[in-house]
């Protein structure tokens, strides 16, 4: 149920887009209205979520330190894993966001009778990195459809992505990698007992959605050979706010587009917000300098304490007997 329900949902969404455009000729709805609405919902939802995080205070400097602190001048500090400066934090965040530093640290614990073994476990890191980087490259490649003239760097990226020169049209490496990575990320959720135990329907849903998007996109490029000029006309119409009614475009393109729309509408309301969230994470984005510079808690308030005077009142006699100095004398 946790797996089947989100899978059927994605299939249903794809069929809706297919049927609506293939038989009901709702191209304007799926090619213009839905994308605009989805984009608006994405922007609003994203902003709400991020502002809600921003509205919460960061009362304490709770950096997770993963290396030597800055202390005595002759002790070598781990400036990136335990930053004490702004530059160090920027470095740590860049490592985290671009190269998944913490996931790279991953290990695998095994218990054999009364022994524990800790092995290297880089597959999750590799799979995650492969997915996210190919996703990024694919998104950037799609800018070709929304920009006129097409900037030079997009051509460069496309060239690099198709460097193997296989097939016509040329095969993009990222197309293969993203499907492989998503499949890996799906399979580990199903196969590894621990991951299966913790996985929810909302973990499978984005995976199926992304797979649907990737596979329909691949089919459009290598299978049905969609009319790119026509697609670009529609895309340019959308970004220039003078939308044109899509004519004679493959229904599969609307499947692709609709799933993208669902993804970005869903994005702000689920775990996909880990993407902006990592930038807000107080255990990563704060310098471990709270002994050097006072961290201020905006809602710090006075509390009731048991003062020394009260303590002396309680124990003064006993203190006097053992010769401890008293304030009251």
């Amino acid at each position, binding site marked *: 149920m946790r797996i089947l329900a989100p899978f059927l949902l994605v299939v249903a969404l794809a069929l809706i887009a297919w049927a609506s455009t293939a038989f009901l000729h709702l191209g304007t709805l799926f090619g213009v209205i839905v994308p605009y609405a989805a984009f608006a919902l994405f922007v609003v939802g994203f902003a709400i979520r991020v502002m809600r995080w921003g509205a919460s205070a960061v009362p*304490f400097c709770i950096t997770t330190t993963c290396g*030597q*602190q800055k202390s005595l001048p002759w002790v070598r500090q781990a400036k990136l894993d335990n930053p004490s400066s702004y530059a160090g934090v920027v470095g740590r965040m860049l490592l985290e966001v671009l190269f998944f530093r913490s996931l790279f640290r991953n290990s695998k614990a095994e218990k054999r009778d009364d022994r524990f073994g800790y092995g290297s476990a880089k597959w999750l890191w590799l799979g995650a990195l492969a997915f996210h980087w190919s996703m990024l490259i694919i998104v950037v490649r799609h800018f070709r459809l929304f920009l006129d003239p097409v900037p030079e760097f997009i051509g460069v990226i496309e060239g690099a992505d198709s460097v193997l020169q296989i097939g016509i049209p040329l095969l993009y490496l990222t197309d293969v990698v993203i499907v492989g990575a998503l499949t890996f990320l799906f399979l*580990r959720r199903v196969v590894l007992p621990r991951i299966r135990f913790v996985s929810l329907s909302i973990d499978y849903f984005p995976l199926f959605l992304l797979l649907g998007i990737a596979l329909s996109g691949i089919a459009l490029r290598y299978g049905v050979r969609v009319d790119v000029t026509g697609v670009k006309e529609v895309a340019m119409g959308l970004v220039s706010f003078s939308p044109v009614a899509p004519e004679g475009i493959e229904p599969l393109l609307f499947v692709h587009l609709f799933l993208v729309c669902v993804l970005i509408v869903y994005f702000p309301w689920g775990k996909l917000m880990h993407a902006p969230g990592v930038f807000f994470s107080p255990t990563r984005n704060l310098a471990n300098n709270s002994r050097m510079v006072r961290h201020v808690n905006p809602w710090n308030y006075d509390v009731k304490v048991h003062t020394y005077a009260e303590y002396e009142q309680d124990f003064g006699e006993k203190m006097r007997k053992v010769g401890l*100095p008293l304030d009251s004398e």
Partner: protein
Amino acid sequence: MAKQPSKESMLDYELGCTPDSWMDTPTEFREGMYCHAAKPKNLEVVGLPNAHEWSSSEEDWNLPAHWKEIVLEGMKERMDKYRSFRLFMDVCVRCGACADKCHFYLGTGDPKNMPVVRAELMRSVYRRYFTTSGKVLGPLVGARDLTEDVLKEWWYYFFQCTECRRCSAFCPYGIDQAEITIMGREILNLLGLNTDWIAGPVANCYMKGNHVGLEPQTILGNVEFMMDDLEDVTGRRFEPTFNRKGAEILLVVPSGDLYAEPGTFTFMGYIMLLEHLGIDYTLSTYASEGGNFGFFTSNEMAKRLNAKMYAEAERLGVKWILGGECGHMWRLVNQYMDTWNGPADFLEQPVSPVTGTVFSNAASTKMVHITEFTADLIYHDKLKLDPSRNDHLVVTYHDSCNTARAMGLLEEPRFIIKNVCNNFYEMPEETIREKTLCCGSGSGLNAGENMELRLRGGLPRAEAVRTVRDAYGVNTLANICALDRASFPALMDYWVPGTRVTGVHELVANALVLGDDDHRTLDLRLEELPGAHADVAADAGVGGAGSEEANHG
């Protein structure tokens, strides 16, 4: 302490999972895995809400009538006050990187001890009451109702977490289960659902200044005993002062060091070092606790207990504070104290009176860790050391969770140990430094009734100790944490018998040569030093690197 299960039965588990979802797996309370309920009188001393009679092993916890509203209100309030809490409710992708990082999961095989699931216990409630999809779709999107069973499950598992932050080091978003446990315990405390092992020390610390409830005359008595022992060992009488106004430095130590072995040996180590150097310092019977069980109750309670340190430093008119070997104490000094109770502008930037080193890393908090202080002394050749006095010890070093992952104090203690011991070996790389494994008893879990939990939680650490025992003959586990010193002896007795547990400053004091006439035959434990009679004459010549000119430098 009840008799513990055999090792065989203790080890009879797999690191596996049922094929179901965690949500379909009911929780049963297992004897030995949880603590006694807080007695109302201990909560009332500090004015915590909803103090009431209840028992953690009974069905009915006598919850207050509006407990559900209190919990949900409590969650909402904390999400506004702590970005960490709100964010960590939202961003987890359940990638599972944390799953096998928790010592409680590794030691119990209970999949709800995987940090991701322990967090999901609360996230599922968050989704149900604070997200639209959860309100509408419920279990389909991993949301569940808040019931008494859910609340009990929180209690069971939030007190099976030592807030060690190991999961946080591995999480790609830095999600820190400690933050969620802390919030969970705060919320449970709104209902009077603390454990007595935490509530008792909190009440003690509030009224008497320390967790173990030592009154001023008892502290002085204990210290006198320790000084007697030191006199037997060194032939010298040390007279540490208490509550003395005008001293340069206030020394604050965890009260465990004033109270029970082997912490007392660590305390004797601090005193021997400071007295030998003629440091102008004093201790306080009022601020007689560096640790803070308030932190395992609520942020506010922690702040209320912590306030004593700065208040006493100001009253006594000292220039700065020196802190003893304690784990969570140093998490709080490093990350919380100045924010709670600062700015400490009545203090001065700490400067070592011996070396003149300015501790610029403590510029604002004005509190220095004693291993920073001592490492600086050794680096500047200010101590004459005879590491051969520790030759019968083959030492490994346990990074306590808090000084490792909430501070990064990794090299200072190692530098000291390498200078005071000749035999030092590291445990496997995956079990030390930022990846260090918890003792299993932190965050107020070092009670007696949950000993099985502690033995299990400490198993991965113990197993790493055994690895170096088998490989190098390690017989001594050094650490800089009072909870380690309190809990490791039982853990070692069970899993790696014969392992000595010691604070770093006990090792320092054993190696410290107080003068030309300091020919010792006993160590700080009043145990015969092996070979002590043979090398009396050689003593002067074995000072270790650079220590010959120590007293002239």
